[in-house]
Protein backbone atom coordinates (compact mmCIF):
# COMPACT_ATOMS: atom_id res chain seq x y z
CA UNK A 1 0.00 0.00 0.00
CA UNK A 2 1.21 3.43 -0.86
CA UNK A 3 2.33 5.71 1.94
CA UNK A 4 1.17 9.33 1.99
CA UNK A 5 2.93 12.08 3.88
CA UNK A 6 0.68 14.55 5.70
CA UNK A 7 1.05 17.22 3.06
CA UNK A 8 0.19 14.68 0.36
CA UNK A 9 -3.16 13.82 2.00
CA UNK A 10 -5.27 16.04 -0.32
CA UNK A 11 -3.90 14.01 -3.24
CA UNK A 12 -4.86 10.75 -1.59
CA UNK A 13 -8.40 12.03 -1.08
CA UNK A 14 -8.72 12.97 -4.75
CA UNK A 15 -7.21 9.67 -5.87
CA UNK A 16 -9.66 7.78 -3.64
CA UNK A 17 -12.54 9.80 -5.08
CA UNK A 18 -11.47 8.93 -8.61
CA UNK A 19 -11.33 5.23 -7.75
CA UNK A 20 -14.77 5.42 -6.11
CA UNK A 21 -16.29 7.30 -9.01
CA UNK A 22 -14.91 4.75 -11.44
CA UNK A 23 -16.43 1.95 -9.33
CA UNK A 24 -19.80 3.70 -9.28
CA UNK A 25 -19.60 4.04 -13.05
CA UNK A 26 -19.01 0.33 -13.40
CA UNK A 27 -21.65 -0.67 -10.85
CA UNK A 28 -24.42 1.63 -12.11
CA UNK A 29 -23.42 1.65 -15.77
CA UNK A 30 -23.78 5.44 -15.66
CA UNK A 31 -21.20 7.31 -17.73
CA UNK A 32 -18.93 9.00 -15.17
CA UNK A 33 -16.32 10.15 -17.68
CA UNK A 34 -17.02 13.84 -17.16
CA UNK A 35 -16.89 13.57 -13.41
CA UNK A 36 -13.69 11.53 -13.57
CA UNK A 37 -12.11 13.98 -15.97
CA UNK A 38 -12.96 16.82 -13.65
CA UNK A 39 -11.45 15.02 -10.67
CA UNK A 40 -8.33 14.18 -12.61
CA UNK A 41 -7.94 17.79 -13.58
CA UNK A 42 -8.33 18.75 -9.95
CA UNK A 43 -5.73 16.15 -8.95
CA UNK A 44 -3.31 17.52 -11.49
CA UNK A 45 -3.66 21.11 -10.34
CA UNK A 46 -3.55 20.12 -6.66
CA UNK A 47 -0.37 18.10 -7.34
CA UNK A 48 1.16 21.09 -9.01
CA UNK A 49 0.11 23.34 -6.17
CA UNK A 50 1.60 21.09 -3.48
CA UNK A 51 4.83 20.20 -5.29
CA UNK A 52 5.62 23.72 -6.40
CA UNK A 53 5.44 25.05 -2.85
CA UNK A 54 7.41 22.43 -0.97
CA UNK A 55 9.35 23.58 2.08
CA UNK A 56 12.91 22.33 2.59
CA UNK A 57 11.72 20.04 5.38
CA UNK A 58 9.01 18.58 3.11
CA UNK A 59 11.68 17.82 0.53
CA UNK A 60 13.70 16.06 3.21
CA UNK A 61 10.61 14.00 3.98
CA UNK A 62 10.16 13.20 0.29
CA UNK A 63 13.81 12.18 -0.04
CA UNK A 64 13.12 9.54 2.64
CA UNK A 65 9.73 8.50 1.30
CA UNK A 66 9.48 4.70 1.61
CA UNK A 67 7.92 4.47 -1.87
CA UNK A 68 10.86 6.16 -3.60
CA UNK A 69 12.95 4.10 -6.00
CA UNK A 70 16.29 3.07 -4.49
CA UNK A 71 19.67 2.51 -6.13
CA UNK A 72 19.09 -1.05 -7.40
CA UNK A 73 15.83 -0.05 -9.04
CA UNK A 74 17.54 2.79 -10.88
CA UNK A 75 20.35 0.50 -11.98
CA UNK A 76 17.95 -2.23 -13.14
CA UNK A 77 15.83 0.44 -14.83
CA UNK A 78 18.51 2.30 -16.75
CA UNK A 79 20.24 -0.92 -17.84
CA UNK A 80 16.98 -2.69 -18.65
CA UNK A 81 18.11 -5.50 -16.35
CA UNK A 82 21.51 -5.93 -18.05
CA UNK A 83 23.43 -5.60 -14.81
CA UNK A 84 25.67 -7.93 -12.81
CA UNK A 85 26.17 -7.17 -9.17
CA UNK A 86 29.76 -7.64 -7.97
CA UNK A 87 30.39 -8.27 -4.31
CA UNK A 88 32.95 -7.75 -1.60
CA UNK A 89 35.89 -5.55 -0.68
CA UNK A 90 38.38 -8.49 -0.92
CA UNK A 91 39.33 -7.87 2.65
CA UNK A 92 36.67 -8.04 5.32
CA UNK A 93 33.25 -8.72 3.83
CA UNK A 94 30.46 -7.78 1.49
CA UNK A 95 28.70 -4.66 2.72
CA UNK A 96 24.99 -4.89 1.90
CA UNK A 97 24.48 -1.14 2.31
CA UNK A 98 26.68 -0.50 -0.73
CA UNK A 99 26.04 -2.18 -4.08
CA UNK A 100 27.86 -2.07 -7.37
CA UNK A 101 28.71 -3.75 -10.61
CA UNK A 102 28.94 -3.41 -14.36
CA UNK A 103 25.80 -2.75 -16.36
CA UNK A 104 24.97 -2.01 -19.96
CA UNK A 105 23.54 1.38 -20.72
CA UNK A 106 22.10 0.97 -24.22
CA UNK A 107 24.96 -1.42 -24.94
CA UNK A 108 27.75 0.63 -23.33
CA UNK A 109 29.39 -0.70 -20.16
CA UNK A 110 29.12 1.52 -17.12
CA UNK A 111 30.20 0.85 -13.53
CA UNK A 112 27.24 1.53 -11.26
CA UNK A 113 27.76 2.00 -7.52
CA UNK A 114 25.45 3.21 -4.78
CA UNK A 115 24.13 2.99 -1.26
CA UNK A 116 21.18 0.67 -1.03
CA UNK A 117 18.27 1.02 1.35
CA UNK A 118 15.89 -1.84 2.09
CA UNK A 119 12.39 -1.96 0.65
CA UNK A 120 10.69 -3.45 3.71
CA UNK A 121 11.36 -3.86 7.43
CA UNK A 122 13.41 -7.00 7.03
CA UNK A 123 15.41 -5.65 4.09
CA UNK A 124 15.98 -2.34 5.80
CA UNK A 125 17.86 -4.21 8.54
CA UNK A 126 19.68 -6.31 5.96
CA UNK A 127 20.78 -3.15 4.15
CA UNK A 128 21.68 -1.45 7.46
CA UNK A 129 19.33 1.41 6.46
CA UNK A 130 21.69 2.42 3.70
CA UNK A 131 24.54 3.18 6.14
CA UNK A 132 27.76 1.61 4.83
CA UNK A 133 30.63 0.35 6.95
CA UNK A 134 34.23 0.94 5.83
CA UNK A 135 33.97 -2.26 3.74
CA UNK A 136 31.24 -0.63 1.68
CA UNK A 137 33.45 2.31 0.79
CA UNK A 138 36.37 -0.03 0.09
CA UNK A 139 34.21 -2.22 -2.14
CA UNK A 140 33.12 0.92 -3.98
CA UNK A 141 36.75 1.95 -4.45
CA UNK A 142 37.73 -1.52 -5.67
CA UNK A 143 35.00 -1.36 -8.30
CA UNK A 144 35.92 2.18 -9.31
CA UNK A 145 39.56 1.21 -9.77
CA UNK A 146 38.46 -1.74 -11.90
CA UNK A 147 36.31 0.56 -14.01
CA UNK A 148 39.31 2.84 -14.44
CA UNK A 149 41.50 -0.08 -15.49
CA UNK A 150 39.07 -1.10 -18.21
CA UNK A 151 38.27 2.48 -19.15
CA UNK A 152 34.58 2.40 -18.23
CA UNK A 153 32.71 5.42 -16.91
CA UNK A 154 31.35 5.40 -13.37
CA UNK A 155 27.91 6.40 -12.15
CA UNK A 156 27.22 6.58 -8.41
CA UNK A 157 23.81 6.77 -6.77
CA UNK A 158 23.88 8.49 -3.40
CA UNK A 159 21.19 7.68 -0.87
CA UNK A 160 22.36 7.46 2.72
CA UNK A 161 21.44 8.87 6.13
CA UNK A 162 25.18 8.67 6.87
CA UNK A 163 28.13 6.32 7.13
CA UNK A 164 27.47 3.83 9.93
CA UNK A 165 28.68 5.17 13.31
CA UNK A 166 29.30 1.75 14.87
CA UNK A 167 32.09 0.35 16.99
CA UNK A 168 33.54 -1.96 14.33
CA UNK A 169 33.21 0.79 11.74
CA UNK A 170 35.46 2.95 13.88
CA UNK A 171 37.89 0.09 14.50
CA UNK A 172 38.20 -0.61 10.80
CA UNK A 173 38.72 3.04 9.94
CA UNK A 174 35.49 4.58 8.69
CA UNK A 175 37.25 7.92 8.46
CA UNK A 176 40.16 6.53 6.49
CA UNK A 177 37.87 4.63 4.12
CA UNK A 178 35.87 7.73 3.22
CA UNK A 179 39.01 9.87 3.01
CA UNK A 180 40.67 7.38 0.65
CA UNK A 181 37.63 7.33 -1.63
CA UNK A 182 37.42 11.10 -1.83
CA UNK A 183 41.13 11.29 -2.62
CA UNK A 184 41.05 8.56 -5.24
CA UNK A 185 37.81 9.68 -6.90
CA UNK A 186 39.34 13.10 -7.44
CA UNK A 187 41.99 11.43 -9.61
CA UNK A 188 40.04 8.76 -11.51
CA UNK A 189 40.92 8.80 -15.19
CA UNK A 190 37.42 7.86 -16.33
CA UNK A 191 34.31 10.05 -16.31
CA UNK A 192 32.48 10.02 -12.96
CA UNK A 193 28.87 11.04 -12.49
CA UNK A 194 27.35 11.28 -9.00
CA UNK A 195 23.60 11.47 -8.56
CA UNK A 196 21.90 12.14 -5.24
CA UNK A 197 18.68 10.14 -5.50
CA UNK A 198 17.49 10.47 -1.89
CA UNK A 199 19.49 11.41 1.16
CA UNK A 200 22.94 12.90 0.81
CA UNK A 201 24.21 12.94 4.37
CA UNK A 202 27.66 14.32 4.91
CA UNK A 203 30.87 12.29 4.61
CA UNK A 204 28.88 9.12 4.05
CA UNK A 205 27.54 10.65 0.85
CA UNK A 206 30.78 12.33 -0.21
CA UNK A 207 32.57 8.97 0.09
CA UNK A 208 31.06 8.14 -3.31
CA UNK A 209 30.30 11.73 -4.26
CA UNK A 210 33.33 13.18 -6.04
CA UNK A 211 32.97 13.40 -9.80
CA UNK A 212 32.91 15.43 -12.99
CA UNK A 213 29.19 15.94 -12.58
CA UNK A 214 27.53 16.02 -9.19
CA UNK A 215 23.79 16.35 -9.57
CA UNK A 216 20.71 16.11 -7.39
CA UNK A 217 17.28 14.83 -8.12
CA UNK A 218 14.66 17.44 -7.42
CA UNK A 219 13.29 16.14 -4.11
CA UNK A 220 16.49 15.22 -2.33
CA UNK A 221 18.81 16.79 0.19
CA UNK A 222 22.57 17.04 0.47
CA UNK A 223 24.42 18.61 3.38
CA UNK A 224 27.00 18.24 6.08
CA UNK A 225 24.47 17.05 8.67
CA UNK A 226 20.84 15.98 8.85
CA UNK A 227 18.37 18.68 9.90
CA UNK A 228 17.49 16.65 13.01
CA UNK A 229 21.10 16.38 14.22
CA UNK A 230 21.72 20.02 13.33
CA UNK A 231 18.69 21.00 15.40
CA UNK A 232 19.86 18.95 18.36
CA UNK A 233 23.36 20.43 18.28
CA UNK A 234 22.71 24.09 17.48
CA UNK A 235 19.29 24.54 19.06
CA UNK A 236 19.88 21.86 21.68
CA UNK A 237 16.51 20.33 20.91
CA UNK A 238 15.05 18.02 18.27
CA UNK A 239 12.16 20.44 17.76
CA UNK A 240 13.86 22.71 15.25
CA UNK A 241 14.33 20.35 12.32
CA UNK A 242 12.21 22.49 9.99
CA UNK A 243 14.24 25.56 10.86
CA UNK A 244 17.48 23.62 10.51
CA UNK A 245 16.39 22.29 7.11
CA UNK A 246 15.88 25.87 5.99
CA UNK A 247 19.11 27.18 7.49
CA UNK A 248 21.24 24.43 5.96
CA UNK A 249 20.14 25.31 2.40
CA UNK A 250 20.14 21.62 1.61
CA UNK A 251 17.61 21.41 -1.24
CA UNK A 252 18.53 20.84 -4.86
CA UNK A 253 17.62 24.42 -5.82
CA UNK A 254 19.71 25.93 -3.03
CA UNK A 255 22.64 23.62 -3.62
CA UNK A 256 22.64 24.47 -7.33
CA UNK A 257 22.49 28.17 -6.52
CA UNK A 258 25.47 27.79 -4.15
CA UNK A 259 27.41 26.10 -6.94
CA UNK A 260 27.85 22.91 -4.93
CA UNK A 261 26.01 20.73 -7.42
CA UNK A 262 26.10 21.07 -11.18
CA UNK A 263 22.56 20.22 -12.12
CA UNK A 264 19.11 19.14 -10.98
CA UNK A 265 17.31 16.15 -12.46
CA UNK A 266 13.59 16.87 -12.64
CA UNK A 267 11.24 14.39 -11.05
CA UNK A 268 7.77 13.54 -12.37
CA UNK A 269 5.19 16.13 -11.28
CA UNK A 270 4.00 14.01 -8.33
CA UNK A 271 7.50 12.99 -7.24
CA UNK A 272 9.75 10.02 -8.00
CA UNK A 273 7.92 7.99 -5.36
CA UNK A 274 4.65 8.04 -7.34
CA UNK A 275 6.13 7.49 -10.79
CA UNK A 276 9.19 5.24 -10.80
CA UNK A 277 9.18 4.79 -14.56
CA UNK A 278 9.16 8.53 -15.11
CA UNK A 279 11.96 9.08 -12.59
CA UNK A 280 14.13 6.34 -14.10
CA UNK A 281 13.56 7.74 -17.59
CA UNK A 282 14.74 11.19 -16.50
CA UNK A 283 17.79 9.74 -14.76
CA UNK A 284 18.76 7.68 -17.78
CA UNK A 285 18.41 10.66 -20.09
CA UNK A 286 20.58 12.77 -17.77
CA UNK A 287 23.31 10.10 -17.47
CA UNK A 288 23.45 9.70 -21.25
CA UNK A 289 23.76 13.39 -21.87
CA UNK A 290 26.51 13.83 -19.22
CA UNK A 291 28.43 10.87 -20.62
CA UNK A 292 28.24 12.29 -24.13
CA UNK A 293 29.47 15.61 -22.81
CA UNK A 294 32.39 14.03 -20.92
CA UNK A 295 33.56 11.25 -23.15
CA UNK A 296 35.60 13.28 -25.60
CA UNK A 297 37.66 15.20 -23.08
CA UNK A 298 41.13 14.01 -22.15
CA UNK A 299 41.47 12.27 -18.76
CA UNK A 300 44.06 14.76 -17.51
CA UNK A 301 41.82 17.68 -18.48
CA UNK A 302 38.87 16.08 -16.74
CA UNK A 303 40.89 15.58 -13.56
CA UNK A 304 42.15 19.13 -13.64
CA UNK A 305 38.63 20.45 -14.15
CA UNK A 306 37.37 18.25 -11.32
CA UNK A 307 39.98 19.59 -8.89
CA UNK A 308 39.28 23.11 -10.09
CA UNK A 309 35.51 22.72 -9.63
CA UNK A 310 35.88 21.51 -6.05
CA UNK A 311 38.50 24.17 -5.33
CA UNK A 312 35.94 26.82 -6.23
CA UNK A 313 33.39 25.52 -3.75
CA UNK A 314 33.64 27.82 -0.77
CA UNK A 315 33.16 31.44 0.22
CA UNK A 316 35.74 33.58 1.98
CA UNK A 317 36.92 37.15 2.00
Amino acid at each position, binding site marked *: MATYLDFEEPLKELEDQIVKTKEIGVDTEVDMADKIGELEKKLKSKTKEIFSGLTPWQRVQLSRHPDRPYTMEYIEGVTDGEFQELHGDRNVKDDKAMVGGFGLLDGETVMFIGQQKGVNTKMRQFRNFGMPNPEGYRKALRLMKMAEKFNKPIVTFIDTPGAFPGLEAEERGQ*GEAIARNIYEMMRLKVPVICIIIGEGA*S*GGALGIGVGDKVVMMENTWY*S*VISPESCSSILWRSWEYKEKAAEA*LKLTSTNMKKLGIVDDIIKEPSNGAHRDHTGAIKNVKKAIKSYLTELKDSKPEDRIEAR*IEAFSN*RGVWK
Partner: protein
Amino acid sequence: MSWFKRSKEGITTSTKEKKETPEGLWEKCSNCKTIFAADDLAKNAYVCDRCNHHERIGSREYFEILFDEGKFKELDKDLTSGDPLKFEDTKKYTDRVKATQSKSGLTDAIRTAKGKLAGETLVIAAMDFAFIGGSMGSVMGEKIARAIDEAIKSKCPFMIISKSGGARMMEAGLSLMQMAKVSGKLGQLSEAKLPYVSFLTDPTTGGVTASFAMLGDLNIAEPDALIAFAGPRVVRETIGRDLPDGFQKSEFVLEHGFLDYIVERADLKKTLALSLKMFKN
Protein backbone atom coordinates in the same frame (compact mmCIF):
# COMPACT_ATOMS: atom_id res chain seq x y z
CA MET B 1 38.00 20.82 27.83
CA SER B 2 40.19 23.40 29.49
CA TRP B 3 43.66 24.20 28.34
CA PHE B 4 46.42 26.31 29.74
CA LYS B 5 45.88 29.96 29.25
CA ARG B 6 48.61 31.83 27.52
CA SER B 7 50.55 34.20 29.68
CA LYS B 8 49.29 37.16 27.65
CA GLU B 9 45.74 36.27 28.54
CA GLY B 10 46.87 35.67 32.06
CA ILE B 11 47.28 39.40 32.59
CA THR B 12 43.54 39.76 32.38
CA THR B 13 42.68 37.05 34.93
CA SER B 14 40.14 38.09 37.50
CA THR B 15 41.24 39.71 40.74
CA LYS B 16 40.08 36.68 42.67
CA GLU B 17 42.40 34.38 40.78
CA LYS B 18 45.20 36.86 41.13
CA LYS B 19 44.77 36.80 44.85
CA GLU B 20 45.08 33.06 44.83
CA THR B 21 48.25 33.20 42.81
CA PRO B 22 50.06 36.21 44.14
CA GLU B 23 53.38 35.44 42.54
CA GLY B 24 52.06 35.60 39.00
CA LEU B 25 50.49 32.98 36.82
CA TRP B 26 49.74 29.44 37.86
CA GLU B 27 48.01 26.77 35.87
CA LYS B 28 46.36 23.53 36.76
CA CYS B 29 46.76 20.30 34.80
CA SER B 30 43.31 19.52 33.46
CA ASN B 31 43.86 15.83 34.12
CA CYS B 32 45.60 15.37 37.50
CA LYS B 33 44.98 18.93 38.74
CA THR B 34 48.58 19.50 39.78
CA ILE B 35 49.41 23.18 39.90
CA PHE B 36 52.38 24.50 37.96
CA ALA B 37 53.90 27.85 37.21
CA ALA B 38 52.75 28.83 33.74
CA ASP B 39 56.28 29.50 32.54
CA ASP B 40 57.41 26.05 33.52
CA LEU B 41 54.54 24.51 31.63
CA ALA B 42 55.35 26.46 28.51
CA LYS B 43 58.93 25.24 28.81
CA ASN B 44 57.62 21.72 29.07
CA ALA B 45 55.63 22.13 25.82
CA TYR B 46 52.38 22.26 27.87
CA VAL B 47 52.73 18.69 29.02
CA CYS B 48 52.08 17.84 32.67
CA ASP B 49 55.26 16.81 34.49
CA ARG B 50 53.39 14.50 36.77
CA CYS B 51 50.87 12.63 34.58
CA ASN B 52 52.16 13.35 31.07
CA HIS B 53 48.84 14.82 30.06
CA HIS B 54 49.21 16.80 26.82
CA GLU B 55 47.15 19.95 27.24
CA ARG B 56 45.35 21.27 24.20
CA ILE B 57 47.38 24.00 22.61
CA GLY B 58 46.91 26.05 19.46
CA SER B 59 48.69 27.16 16.32
CA ARG B 60 50.75 29.71 18.22
CA GLU B 61 52.25 27.12 20.57
CA TYR B 62 52.85 24.56 17.82
CA PHE B 63 54.59 27.12 15.63
CA GLU B 64 56.73 28.05 18.62
CA ILE B 65 57.60 24.43 19.29
CA LEU B 66 58.31 23.45 15.70
CA PHE B 67 59.81 26.36 13.81
CA ASP B 68 63.48 27.14 14.41
CA GLU B 69 63.77 29.98 16.92
CA GLY B 70 60.01 30.30 16.69
CA LYS B 71 60.43 32.21 13.45
CA PHE B 72 57.98 31.83 10.58
CA LYS B 73 56.09 33.72 7.92
CA GLU B 74 52.34 33.49 8.29
CA LEU B 75 50.38 32.93 5.06
CA ASP B 76 46.97 34.38 4.14
CA LYS B 77 46.62 35.87 7.59
CA ASP B 78 43.60 38.00 6.80
CA LEU B 79 41.33 35.44 5.17
CA THR B 80 37.99 35.38 6.97
CA SER B 81 34.71 33.64 6.38
CA GLY B 82 31.78 34.96 4.41
CA ASP B 83 28.22 34.01 5.20
CA PRO B 84 26.98 32.45 1.97
CA LEU B 85 24.02 30.75 3.59
CA LYS B 86 22.97 33.69 5.76
CA PHE B 87 23.02 31.08 8.48
CA GLU B 88 21.20 31.71 11.70
CA ASP B 89 20.46 29.33 14.54
CA THR B 90 20.14 30.77 18.03
CA LYS B 91 22.75 33.26 16.86
CA LYS B 92 23.70 34.73 13.51
CA TYR B 93 26.75 33.04 12.04
CA THR B 94 28.37 36.41 11.34
CA ASP B 95 27.93 37.41 15.00
CA ARG B 96 29.31 34.10 16.16
CA VAL B 97 32.40 34.58 13.99
CA LYS B 98 32.91 38.15 15.17
CA ALA B 99 32.53 37.20 18.82
CA THR B 100 34.98 34.32 18.46
CA GLN B 101 37.44 36.52 16.61
CA SER B 102 37.54 39.16 19.30
CA LYS B 103 37.64 36.60 22.09
CA SER B 104 40.40 34.47 20.57
CA GLY B 105 42.35 37.02 18.61
CA LEU B 106 42.26 34.60 15.69
CA THR B 107 40.71 35.11 12.25
CA ASP B 108 39.55 31.51 11.79
CA ALA B 109 40.16 27.99 13.02
CA ILE B 110 43.45 27.49 11.18
CA ARG B 111 46.71 29.33 10.66
CA THR B 112 49.21 28.49 7.97
CA ALA B 113 52.88 29.36 7.99
CA LYS B 114 56.18 28.75 6.30
CA GLY B 115 59.39 28.45 8.23
CA LYS B 116 62.32 26.18 8.93
CA LEU B 117 62.39 23.03 10.98
CA ALA B 118 65.89 21.87 11.83
CA GLY B 119 67.13 24.05 9.01
CA GLU B 120 64.77 22.70 6.36
CA THR B 121 61.87 24.65 4.89
CA LEU B 122 58.43 23.40 5.84
CA VAL B 123 54.85 24.65 5.46
CA ILE B 124 52.56 23.96 8.41
CA ALA B 125 48.80 24.40 8.74
CA ALA B 126 47.75 24.29 12.40
CA MET B 127 44.22 24.35 13.75
CA ASP B 128 42.90 26.28 16.72
CA PHE B 129 40.25 24.49 18.70
CA ALA B 130 39.41 27.74 20.45
CA PHE B 131 37.81 29.00 17.23
CA ILE B 132 34.35 27.36 16.99
CA GLY B 133 35.79 23.98 17.95
CA GLY B 134 38.43 24.05 15.23
CA SER B 135 35.61 23.62 12.76
CA MET B 136 36.33 23.30 9.07
CA GLY B 137 34.65 25.84 6.81
CA SER B 138 35.56 27.56 3.56
CA VAL B 139 38.41 29.54 5.11
CA MET B 140 40.10 26.42 6.44
CA GLY B 141 39.77 24.70 3.06
CA GLU B 142 41.10 27.68 1.16
CA LYS B 143 43.98 28.33 3.56
CA ILE B 144 45.09 24.70 3.39
CA ALA B 145 44.76 24.72 -0.40
CA ARG B 146 46.93 27.83 -0.68
CA ALA B 147 49.42 26.43 1.82
CA ILE B 148 49.78 23.32 -0.33
CA ASP B 149 50.36 25.53 -3.36
CA GLU B 150 53.09 27.29 -1.37
CA ALA B 151 54.69 23.95 -0.45
CA ILE B 152 54.63 22.86 -4.10
CA LYS B 153 56.13 26.19 -5.15
CA SER B 154 58.84 25.97 -2.48
CA LYS B 155 59.36 22.23 -3.13
CA CYS B 156 59.08 21.57 0.58
CA PRO B 157 57.15 19.14 2.82
CA PHE B 158 53.74 19.98 4.14
CA MET B 159 52.18 19.31 7.51
CA ILE B 160 48.67 19.67 8.90
CA ILE B 161 48.16 19.73 12.65
CA SER B 162 44.54 18.69 13.11
CA LYS B 163 42.49 19.60 16.16
CA SER B 164 38.89 19.84 15.16
CA GLY B 165 35.35 18.73 15.88
CA GLY B 166 34.80 18.37 12.13
CA ALA B 167 32.95 20.35 9.50
CA ARG B 168 31.45 23.73 10.37
CA MET B 169 27.68 23.32 10.35
CA MET B 170 27.05 27.00 9.65
CA GLU B 171 28.56 26.61 6.20
CA ALA B 172 26.70 23.35 5.65
CA GLY B 173 27.26 21.95 2.14
CA LEU B 174 30.20 24.27 1.55
CA SER B 175 32.03 22.86 4.60
CA LEU B 176 31.54 19.38 3.25
CA MET B 177 33.15 20.42 -0.02
CA GLN B 178 36.36 21.43 1.78
CA MET B 179 37.05 17.74 2.39
CA ALA B 180 37.13 17.14 -1.35
CA LYS B 181 38.88 20.39 -2.12
CA VAL B 182 41.83 19.68 0.18
CA SER B 183 42.00 16.07 -0.98
CA GLY B 184 42.31 17.25 -4.58
CA LYS B 185 45.15 19.55 -3.59
CA LEU B 186 46.90 16.77 -1.67
CA GLY B 187 46.86 14.77 -4.87
CA GLN B 188 48.82 17.53 -6.57
CA LEU B 189 51.29 17.60 -3.68
CA SER B 190 51.69 13.87 -4.00
CA GLU B 191 52.34 14.19 -7.72
CA ALA B 192 55.10 16.67 -6.91
CA LYS B 193 56.56 13.90 -4.67
CA LEU B 194 56.53 16.13 -1.63
CA PRO B 195 55.83 14.50 1.73
CA TYR B 196 52.65 15.24 3.61
CA VAL B 197 52.65 14.67 7.35
CA SER B 198 49.27 14.56 9.04
CA PHE B 199 49.62 15.20 12.76
CA LEU B 200 46.49 14.31 14.68
CA THR B 201 45.99 15.90 18.07
CA ASP B 202 43.19 15.90 20.61
CA PRO B 203 40.51 15.93 19.27
CA THR B 204 40.41 15.05 15.58
CA THR B 205 36.93 13.97 14.54
CA GLY B 206 34.25 14.02 11.85
CA GLY B 207 34.94 15.44 8.42
CA VAL B 208 38.56 16.21 9.22
CA THR B 209 39.20 12.56 10.06
CA ALA B 210 37.18 11.48 7.01
CA SER B 211 39.46 13.44 4.70
CA PHE B 212 42.91 15.00 4.92
CA ALA B 213 43.79 13.93 8.48
CA MET B 214 43.83 10.28 7.37
CA LEU B 215 45.67 10.90 4.10
CA GLY B 216 49.21 11.58 5.26
CA ASP B 217 52.23 9.86 3.84
CA LEU B 218 52.75 9.74 7.55
CA ASN B 219 49.82 9.80 9.95
CA ILE B 220 51.23 10.61 13.37
CA ALA B 221 49.52 11.56 16.61
CA GLU B 222 49.98 12.91 20.10
CA PRO B 223 49.45 10.40 22.93
CA ASP B 224 45.94 9.85 24.25
CA ALA B 225 44.28 12.02 21.59
CA LEU B 226 40.68 11.35 20.55
CA ILE B 227 40.73 10.35 16.88
CA ALA B 228 37.37 9.38 15.45
CA PHE B 229 34.98 9.62 12.57
CA ALA B 230 31.83 9.39 14.69
CA GLY B 231 32.36 10.74 18.19
CA PRO B 232 32.17 8.44 21.22
CA ARG B 233 28.72 9.70 22.26
CA VAL B 234 27.23 8.83 18.87
CA VAL B 235 28.89 5.42 18.80
CA ARG B 236 27.67 4.68 22.33
CA GLU B 237 24.13 5.60 21.33
CA THR B 238 24.38 3.44 18.21
CA ILE B 239 25.54 0.29 19.93
CA GLY B 240 23.63 0.85 23.16
CA ARG B 241 26.42 -0.10 25.55
CA ASP B 242 29.54 1.35 27.09
CA LEU B 243 32.64 1.71 24.99
CA PRO B 244 35.83 -0.23 25.77
CA ASP B 245 38.59 1.63 27.59
CA GLY B 246 40.83 3.61 25.32
CA PHE B 247 38.39 3.37 22.39
CA GLN B 248 39.23 5.90 19.66
CA LYS B 249 42.37 7.07 21.43
CA SER B 250 45.68 7.41 19.54
CA GLU B 251 47.00 4.12 20.95
CA PHE B 252 43.83 2.32 19.79
CA VAL B 253 43.98 3.90 16.34
CA LEU B 254 47.68 2.95 16.04
CA GLU B 255 46.86 -0.62 17.07
CA HIS B 256 44.20 -0.81 14.34
CA GLY B 257 46.62 0.27 11.69
CA PHE B 258 45.77 3.87 10.91
CA LEU B 259 48.77 5.65 12.41
CA ASP B 260 52.49 5.37 11.69
CA TYR B 261 53.55 6.40 15.15
CA ILE B 262 52.64 8.29 18.30
CA VAL B 263 54.99 10.99 19.45
CA GLU B 264 55.31 12.81 22.76
CA ARG B 265 55.16 16.53 22.33
CA ALA B 266 58.58 16.93 23.91
CA ASP B 267 60.06 14.73 21.16
CA LEU B 268 57.92 16.10 18.33
CA LYS B 269 60.45 18.38 16.71
CA LYS B 270 63.39 16.00 16.65
CA THR B 271 61.23 13.03 15.60
CA LEU B 272 59.67 15.01 12.80
CA ALA B 273 63.04 16.34 11.69
CA LEU B 274 64.30 12.77 11.38
CA SER B 275 61.23 11.64 9.42
CA LEU B 276 61.59 14.52 7.00
CA LYS B 277 65.29 13.85 6.65
CA MET B 278 64.52 10.25 5.65
CA PHE B 279 62.22 11.45 2.89
CA LYS B 280 64.91 13.77 1.64
CA ASN B 281 68.17 11.85 1.89
